[in-house]
């Protein structure tokens, strides 16, 4: 119970601070953010968009970890955990895509411009979609668990190409791209202490939120399975 209250306070603080703290050219007080050239007020999305994108990958990673566990032990609980994580990942992936597109409309002038980062989040969306299509095409429970585990591992192997390699070797508009000169690698040196602190608090808050959602999700799925078995 105590950590739920802690999470509530953390997320509330991050939301309020992230939206209301002013951006000024030379920060003098602890509640002022520095001005990043080329981003301006748009920079504030980092507190909400980056955590969703981060959770998209974390959820996928968790799903892969439990897929590997399933293939080792053939315990159906692991498959349920992996599936719940994939469902949450899909939600966060859609959130990251939509918030990113809205931000791009104001920062770059169009909702979608096939920037390498946009391509990679789109690929993740496709992977999640393919995973659910595969699950619905196999009827036998064990077979479905095995095939979707294998697919999520093979898909996870391609993720480093999208997330770490493509955006760095291809030219793009996203902060942190190969030819980015004005907005720079934002995380490294353009953010000052308080901005970094709130950014990392937001990451922590969203990660705990994900963990909580995942826990509730797989527990409820387990009970559903149990009830199904009792009445059939």
């Amino acid at each position, binding site marked *: 119970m105590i950590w739920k209250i802690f999470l509530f306070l953390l997320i509330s603080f991050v939301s309020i601070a992230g939206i209301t703290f002013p951006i000024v050219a030379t920060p003098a007080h602890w509640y002022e953010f520095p001005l990043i050239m080329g981003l301006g007020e748009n920079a504030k999305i980092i507190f909400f968009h980056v955590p969703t994108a981060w959770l998209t990958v974390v959820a996928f990673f968790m799903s892969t970890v439990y897929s590997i566990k399933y*293939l080792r032990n053939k315990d159906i609980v692991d498959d349920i955990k992996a599936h719940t994580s994939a469902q949450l990942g899909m939600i966060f992936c859609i959130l990251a895509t939509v918030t990113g597109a809205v931000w791009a409309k104001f920062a770059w002038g169009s909702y979608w411009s096939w920037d390498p980062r946009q*391509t990679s989040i789109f*690929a993740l969306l*496709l*992977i999640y*979609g*393919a995973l659910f*299509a*595969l699950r619905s*095409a*196999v*009827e036998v429970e064990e*077979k479905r668990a*095995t*095939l979707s*585990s*294998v*697919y999520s*591992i*093979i*898909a996870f*192997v*391609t993720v480093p*190409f*999208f997330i770490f*390699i*493509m955006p760095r*070797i*291809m030219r793009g508009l996203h902060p942190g791209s190969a030819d980015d000169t004005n907005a720079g690698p934002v995380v490294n040196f353009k953010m000052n202490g308080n901005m970094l602190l709130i950014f990392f608090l937001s990451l922590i808050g969203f990660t705990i939120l994900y963990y909580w959602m995942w826990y509730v999700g797989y527990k409820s799925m387990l009970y559903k399975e149990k009830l199904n078995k009792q009445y059939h």
Partner: protein
Amino acid sequence: MSAYALFKKDLASELRMRYAINSLIMFIVVTISVILFSIGNEKISDFLSGGLFWVVIFFSAMSGLSRAFVSEEERGTTLTLQLIASPTTIFSGKLFFNLILVFAMNIVVALLYSALFDAFVLKNLPLFLYAFVLGNIGIAIASTLIASIIAKASSKGTLYPVLSFPILLPLMLTLIDLTKQAMDGTTFETSYIELAVLGCYDVVMIAASFLLFDFIWKD
């Protein structure tokens, strides 16, 4: 039973039935003619013709390569294969067959394409050939593994491109980029990273495939 024996068996049955070869050739002709019709008398840019080249290859691969495992499942010979050979042998044999098929298919596409499209001129041919070979290997590996997955699922035909596209996407994006560079005539030094990405992709995929195939194959 060795992987080579399995390859010979697949080749013999393919030459007898000519299922994959016939449908692949017709598919290539149909796809290229659809593109030609839709272009009409328009002048298309060089970069677009390079991208369309890989579109033809992707969809041709999706139409023919799933046969490797689906045909075993349809004929009901999966169980026999499981009894007489280890999973690694099966995968090697099927992969070798698909490699030959992909190379044959893509060479036909490349020849037809460069004959029919005036805009498709490669200034740095060796660079394109390196990309072509590495790309074909990657396509063959990924599509063989996905074929073994969908052979066990229902609605095989539609599921195959859906599952393959995200896996092949990093490969396709790099190949399209490299084709553009080969058409611009860039040197090997500038395109080194892209070629390295292709090599990494092939190695990663082949390692993952051999590790994971055991789990797909064993019921």
